[in-house]
C-alpha cells in the first residue's frame, strides 16, 4: 500500500470578525496518498479553499495538526515553510496569477531560482515544463499576450517547475470555457500519471471531479464524504 503523503488530524479553523464567527473547518481528519489525485468538492462556503490553504500551509490552523511527508507544518517557521513550499509544492489558482512583469518562461523559472537552481538550469527546466504543457512556442510572451487557457498552462508549468511532490489546484478551470477546461484537466491527469505527483484539486464541477481518483465532499467545514478511490 502507498503511504499517506498528506495527513490532517482534527484540524479546525475559525474566522472571527466583529460579531460573527465562521467555523470554516471543523475537526477535519483526512489522508491523501502519494500519487493520488483527489478532488475536494462542496457548495460555496463549505470550506474547500480553506482546507486547501490549511493543508498546504498557506494559512494557519487553530487546532489539530497537518503533516506533509511526516513533517508537521506547525513546527516550521515562516521562512522554513516558504522554503518547503518552494521545494515540495506547486500551486495552481483559479485566476492564473502570473506575475505580469515576467515572461512565461521567467514565471516558470521563478520557483526554481528561489529553490536555489542556477539561472541556466532554471531556464532549461522551465522551457521543458512549458514544452510539456504545450507552450513551447510561447516562451517569451508576457502574460498579457496569452489567452486565459494559455495563462493557466503557464501557471501549471510553474506549479510543476520543481517537480513538487504535491500540486495544489484551487478551481484550476474555473475561469475557462469548457473546451479549455477539459484540455487543462486532461493535461493535469496526464501529468499525474506520468510523474506520480500528488494532486489536490478544489472544484465545484462534477465533470472535473469525475476525472480524479477520489472525490472528497465537504459541507459547512465538515468532511461529509471522504470518497473512495
Amino acid at each position, binding site marked *: 500500500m502507498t503511504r499517506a503523503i498528506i495527513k490532517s488530524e482534527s484540524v479546525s479553523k475559525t474566522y472571527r470578525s*466583529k460579531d460573527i464567527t465562521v467555523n470554516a473547518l471543523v475537526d477535519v481528519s483526512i489522508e491523501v496518498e502519494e500519487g493520488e489525485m483527489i478532488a475536494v468538492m462542496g457548495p460555496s462556503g463549505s470550506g474547500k*479553499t480553506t482546507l486547501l*490553504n490549511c493543508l498546504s500551509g*498557506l*494559512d*494557519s490552523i487553530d487546532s489539530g495538526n497537518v503533516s506533509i511527508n511526516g513533517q508537521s507544518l506547525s513546527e516550521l*517557521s*515562516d*521562512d522554513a515553510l*516558504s*522554503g*518547503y*513550499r*518552494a*521545494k515540495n*509544492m*506547486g*500551486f495552481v*489558482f483559479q*485566476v492564473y*496569477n*502570473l*506575475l*505580469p*512583469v*515576467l515572461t512565461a518562461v*521567467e514565471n516558470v*523559472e*521563478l*520557483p526554481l*531560482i*528561489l*529553490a536555489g537552481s*542556477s*539561472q541556466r538550469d532554471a531556464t532549461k527546466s522551465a522551457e521543458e515544463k512549458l514544452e510539456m504543457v504545450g507552450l513551447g512556442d510561447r516562451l517569451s510572451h508576457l502574460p498579457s499576450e496569452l489567452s486565459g487557457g494559455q495563462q493557466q498552462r503557464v501557471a501549471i508549468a*510553474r*506549479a510543476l517547475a520543481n517537480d513538487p511532490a504535491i500540486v495544489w489546484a484551487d478551481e484550476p478551470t474555473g475561469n475557462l470555457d469548457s473546451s479549455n477546461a477539459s484540455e487543462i484537466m486532461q493535461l493535469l491527469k496526464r501529468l499525474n500519471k506520468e510523474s506520480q505527483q500528488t494532486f489536490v484539486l478544489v472544484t465545484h464541477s462534477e465533470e472535473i471531479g469525475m476525472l480524479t481518483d477520489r472525490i472528497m465532499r465537504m459541507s459547512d467545514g465538515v468532511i461529509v464524504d471522504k470518497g473512495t478511490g
Partner: protein
Amino acid sequence: MEKLFGIEMDVLAIALFSGMLVIILVTIFLAARNRVLIKLALRNIPRRKAQTLLIITGLMLSTTIIMAALAIGDSINSGIRLGALYSLGGTDVRLSSPVFSRFGDNYLDETVVDEVRSALQGDTRVDGILPLIREKMPVINETSGKTVSDAVIVGADLNSMNGFTDVLGTEENGPIKIDIRNLQEGETVINKPLSDKLDLRIDDLLTLVSATGRTQHKVVAIVDPVGLIGGTESSRSSALFPVKTVQRLFNRDAKYNIIEVSVTGDYVVEGVTYDEIKSEEVAKKLSLAFINNQAVNELFNLLKTPKVVKAIKSELTERENDSSNPIFSDKLADLLPELDKDLPSDELKMAIADSLTQAKILGLIEKLEDENLTQSLFFAMSELVELNVDSIKTRSLEFAEIISSGIVLFFTIFGSFSIIVGLMLIFLVFVMLAASRTTEMGILRAIGTKRRHLVQMFTYEGLLYSLGASIAGTVLGLLASVLLMQLMIRGFADEDEITFYYSVTFQSIIIAFSAGFVLTALTVTISAYRVSKLNIVVAIRGLSEEFVTDEIPNAKQRAMTILKWIFGPFTFAYETWFIWRSGQGILIRVLTIMGLLLIFPWLLIIIWKIFKFFQPWLLTGWPLLPIGLIMTVYGLDPEKGIKGFGLGNAALVSVGISFVIVSLGLIIRSFLARRGYRGELQRRVSMTFIGLGMLTFYALPFDALEDITGELDGGPEMFVLSGVSLVAASVWVIMHNADVIVWIISKLIGRWGGLRPVVKLAIAYPMAARLRTGLTLAMFSLVIFTMMIFAILINLGNVLVDEPDRASGGFDIRATIRPELPIDDPYEVLALGTGKLSTTDFKVITSQARVRVEVRQDGGEEMQYKSARIRASDESWLQNNTYQLTHWDSEYGGTSAEIWEAVATNPELAVVAGNIISTDGGFGPPVDPSSFKIEGIDPAEKGQMKSVSITLRPPIGQGSLDTAVKRKVIGVLDSFADSFENSGNDIYMHHSVLQQVSDKFVPFTEYKFKLSDPLRADEIALLLDTVFIEHGMKSRSIKSYIDENQTQSNAFNQLFQGFMGLGLLVGVASIGVIAFRAVVERRQSIGMMRAIGFKERMVQLQFLMESGIVAVLGSVLGIGLGTLIAWNIFKTISQESEGVTFAIPWGNVGMVVLVTLIFSLVTTFLPARQASKVSPSEALRYE
C-alpha cells in the same frame, strides 16, 4: 556654512554620502546574489509610467525641503561672509590700543609700530604691516551740497601698503587695480557708495569737516568698497588719504589708532586671502609679544598662592557638577595646570590676557575678601595687555557662521515637520503601491518566496525611486531656494549693511542629496517590511489592503532567531562561497568582497531581532511602565527627582511620560480582554485613553508641570516632539472613534436627501481604509499645524507697529554725532543755522552719552564684575521720555514718569533695561555669560520691586583703579524700550556719572528729538544732518526704523512662509495620491455603482467629498492644535516681555486653509473625473 547641528559640514557630507554608498553597495550585492528579485523590481518600474512619476514626486519632497533649507543657509552665510571679507580685504589681524577712547588716549606712537615690525621681522606668514588712522567724519560735496555725516576716513601709511593693495577699480577706470601708493597730499581715493551719496566724480573736491575746520581734497579715483576703502558695517562710505593728511586733521602727528597685519593665505574671494591657522598663529605671536612680562610675573605669583589655586579648583569642580550650564567661554580650566609650573608659560599668558578670565578670577578673589590681594591683582591685570590683538577676519567669519547656521537651524526645525510629512507620504505611497500588487505578492509567497525576499524586492524598487527622487528633489530644492532667496534679496535691497546673493555650496548639495536618499531609503525599507507582512490567502484573493499581523512565535523561537542572526554571517559566507564556486563569473567575485559591507545591516538586524524578542511582552503594557517611569525620573531636575540621578531634560521626561501613558492604555486593554469584553470595545477604550492622555499631556503649557519636574532644559527638539505627538494623538483618537465622526458628518451633510447615498459612500470608504486615511489626516493636519503656529507667531512681533512709542519713548528722531565734534548747545546751532530749521520745529531736544563699564550687584551671589553700558542722560531726556517700567520701587514713585523724575533729580538712582533681569534665553539667543544681570527680580512678576544697589567701575585697564561708583536701581524697563539700539544691558542714569567714572571728558554723542510736527520726521532728519554737519550728525526718524524693520521681517517671513509652503505641497500631494489610487482600485465598484444608477456627477462628487472630508478634518485639527501650541509659546514669551498680544490672524489663516483646500480638491478633481468616466460595462467586465 561650516557647521550644522554642531557637526562639521564636511563630516556630515562625508558621513551621509558614505551612508548612501553603503546602502547602494549592499543593495547591489544582495541583488546580485538573487537576481530574480531585482528583475522583478526593475520590471515593475516602467509598468505604469504615471504611477512611477507620482511616486517620484511624492518621494522627492523631503529632499527638496532639505536642499532648500541648506541653500538658503548658504546664501545668507555667503552674504554676511562676503560682506565681512570684502570690508576686511587684506587685514587678518587688527592691533589697537587697549585704552578705550572714553577713558583715555587710544592712539599709538610710532614706536609701537616699530615694535610690531620687529616682532614680526622675517615672519614669512606675514605679508604686510600697515599703520593707519581710521575715524568717522562728516564729509561734504560743496558743489552739490550733499553730505555724509559718518564717512569712514582712512589715513594709511602709503609706504607700507604691501599686502593691502588689492583694491579694485570701478567701471570708470576699467577693471584694473589702482596703485594707491602714489596718492599725494591733497588727493583722495573714494569708494563708490560715497561717490554715489555725494554725487562726487573724479577731479571733484571732497570737503572734510574736522575739529580744526574744513579742508578740501581732490578725488583721483573711485573704487569698489573693498578692503581698506570698504568702510565699516554701519557705514559703507569711505575715503582714503595719505596718513599725514589725517594725522594733521586729528592733530595727531606721527600717531595711529590701528595697525593692521596681513597674513598670507589662499584667495577666498577675489582679491582677499585667508588662512585660518596662519592667522591664528600670527595673532598669538603678537599677543605674547605685547604682554607685559613684569605684570605676568606678578600675576603668576599672586595666582600661585594656595588660597587662589584652591578657589579656582573649587570653582572648576562646581562647574563639573553643574550640568545645566556647560558653556564657559573663559580659560580658567586652561589656567590651572599652568600654575603648577615654575615659570609662566605661553599658555598661562594667553589665558590671563583673556578679559573674561580676568573678570572671573577677580570675582573669585573678591569672595576671599582679601582687599590687598584684590588690589594687586587688579593692578597687575590693568598693566598686562600692551596692545589689543584681534584676529578680526577669523572672528568675522565665525560670526557669519553663527548667524547662518542659526537660520538654517530655524529652518530645519520648522522644516522637519514638512520632512516628517514627506516621509509619511513615502510610506503612504508604498503602502498603496503594495496594495495594488497584493495578489502578485501573495502568489510569490505561495510559490515559496520568503518574506525577506519580498522586503528586498520592494526595497530595490523603492531605492531606484529614491535615487530618482533624490536627484529630482535636489534640483527642485535648488530651484525653490533661488525663488525664495529672491524675496529675501528684494527685502534687503535698500540696505547698506548686508547684500544677499544666491549661493550654494557643493557640500550642501551632497548633504541634501545623500540625506534625502538615506531618509527615503530607510522609509522605503520600513515600508517594505510593513507591506511584506501579508496573509497569503487574503492577498491572493486580493481582498484587503489592511495587513494581518502574524501569530507571534514563542520565546524559544524568537531566541533562536537572534542566535540565527548572530551566526548569520557564517551561513552567509558559506552560501556566498557556494555561489562563487558554482562559477557565476567575475562580477559575483567582486560583489562578494562588497559583501563585507553587510556588517552594517547585520548589526541593525540583530538589534531588531532582540527588540522583537521582547516585543510581545512590551505589548502587554507592563514592562513599558517601569521603563517610562525610570526615563521620567531620570529626566527630572535632580532637585525634584532623585539626587544625583537626573538630567533635567524635557525631552526625556516627555518621552518617559508618553511611555507611561501608552503602557497604562495597553494594561487597560489586557484587563478588558481578561474580563471578556468585545475586541472592538477593548481597542476603542484603550486606544482612546492613550490618545487623549497624550493629547492632554502635550497640550499643557510648557511650564505647567514645573512644580513637579523642576526646571527642565528643552531645545527646539521639544517643539517638534510635542507638535508631532499632539497631531498623532488626535488622529489616533479620531481613527479609533471613526464611527462617531461618521455619525456627526452624516448628521451634518445627510440632510440633503438626494446626496445621502453619495455622502454615505464618501464617508464609508475613507473610514474603511484607516491606515491611509489616518496617515493622510496626520500629514494634512501637521502641515496646517505648522503654518498656523507660524502665522500666529509672526503676528506677535507686530507690537512695534502697534505701539511704536514703547520702543521710541515718544521721540521722533534719533541721532548720533562724532565725539570729537561735540555740540555745546544744540539750540544755538539751530539758531545759527542756515534757516532750514528753527528751534520751534522741536518740542524737546535731549542728549545722552554711552560708556561701557563693569558692574556688580552689591550683596549678589556672584561677586564678579560683568559688562554693562551706562546711558548717561541729560535731565531733559530723563524727564521727557515716555518709556514704561515693568518694575519699580514704590518708595520713589508710583508711575513710570515719577520714577524717571526721581532719576532725573537724584543722580544716585538708576533704571535698568529689561534684559538685565531676565534669567534665561527663552526663545531668544543664549545669554552671554559676561554680561551683567541682576538677580532676585522675577521678570514674570511685574509691579513692585525693592531697589537694588550696584557698583560701577571702568573696565580693567581703563581709568583709575579706585573708581567705584554706587547706584541704586529703582526701576526696570519694558523689554521693548529702546529696542532700536540693542539696549541689551544698558543702565540709565543722570549724566553726572560721566565725571565720576572717567577722568576724561566724555561728550554727549546721542541726541533724541521730539518734533512739533511728528509727520515731518523724515524731512527734518535729513535737514538735521546738514545743519549739524560740523558735528557729524547722522539722524534718522523712528518711523523709518520701524518701516525698515517691517520690510526686513516681512521679507524673512515671506521667505519662511514660502519654505513652509513646500510642506503644504506634500500634504496636497498626499490627498492627490490617495484619490488617484482610489479610482484605480475601485474601478469595479464604480462600474457597479454606475450600473445601479449613480450618475456621473454623483461619482465625481463622491470622490471630491472624500478628499474634502479628510482635508477639512485635517485643517480643523491643524488649526486647533496650532493655536494651542502657539498659545503656549505666547505664554512663555509674554512672561519675558510684557504687552505682547495674542491674536489669530484669521485673514491669513483663512487664506492658507482656503488655498490648501482648493489645491487638494484640484488634485482630486482629475482622478474624480476619470472615475466618473468609467463605463459600467467595461469596468464590470474585469471580473
